């Protein structure tokens, strides 16, 4: 009997919860508060700041691979902005620089960097 009441209350409580948890657009934090980002995270992540904005790095050159390699995963893929916290204009320039570096064999297209 206790189980029944518990299940009833939980099922009754679930419905309003569900409607709260899936709003069409929820204003997340500035860096990455978007829901369902990397594998079902909910709500706010600790506010990540854009490394380039903070350190005031204006030029992202394809030649400085030490900087670029920080934003490249082990597999060689470019890490998405929601994980690194980079702002949009910097992410665009960064990804352009990474692609240029890949073309001139400074970074690999796939696999571990030598």
């Amino acid at each position, binding site marked *: 009997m206790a189980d029944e009441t518990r299940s009833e209350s939980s099922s009754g409580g679930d419905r309003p919860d569900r409607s709260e948890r899936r709003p069409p657009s929820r204003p997340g934090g500035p860096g990455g508060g978007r829901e369902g980002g990397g594998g079902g995270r909910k709500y706010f992540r600790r506010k990540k700041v854009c490394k380039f904005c903070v350190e005031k790095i204006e030029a992202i050159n394809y030649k400085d691979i030490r900087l670029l390699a920080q934003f490249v995963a082990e597999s060689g893929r470019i890490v998405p902005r929601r994980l690194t916290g980079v702002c949009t204009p910097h992410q665009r320039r960064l990804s352009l620089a990474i692609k240029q570096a890949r073309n001139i064999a*400074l970074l690999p297209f796939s696999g571990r960097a030598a």
Partner: protein
Amino acid sequence: MYTDLFGDLREMENGMNRTYELMFIVRPDMPEEEQDKLISTLETAVAASSGSVKSVERMGKRRLAYTVRKFHDGIYVLLTVEGGGGLIHELERRLRVTEPVIKFLTVRIDEEQKRLDKIKAIKDAKRKAAAPPPPVEPAGEAPAATA
């Protein structure tokens, strides 16, 4: 990229002043003299198309991130030139034909340089505007302290 439609016309009047960075990789077993010969050939081609070479930087032998034409290492050379688009067309054609060159990449850098200069100018202006007020007070206090 094509926001400045009249820029090209203006350039043709002012003379080509586009700046390009041309990075190419030479096979690692190429002797030093041949490298110099290649670079001087490119420089002649630049001069012939009324351009100018701003700098040549040899970045030395590096390990490549992936195998290019069965090579694992390569000698990187960075050439900064100033000139028109036709110049780059010519240079790239030469590099494509040259056997020891295994890869090249051309990047146009004058627009980026303009943007950076603009940011710098804004920063300097801000610094100048902020600088004058503080020095006035300490200058007045220091002589009073020493006296």
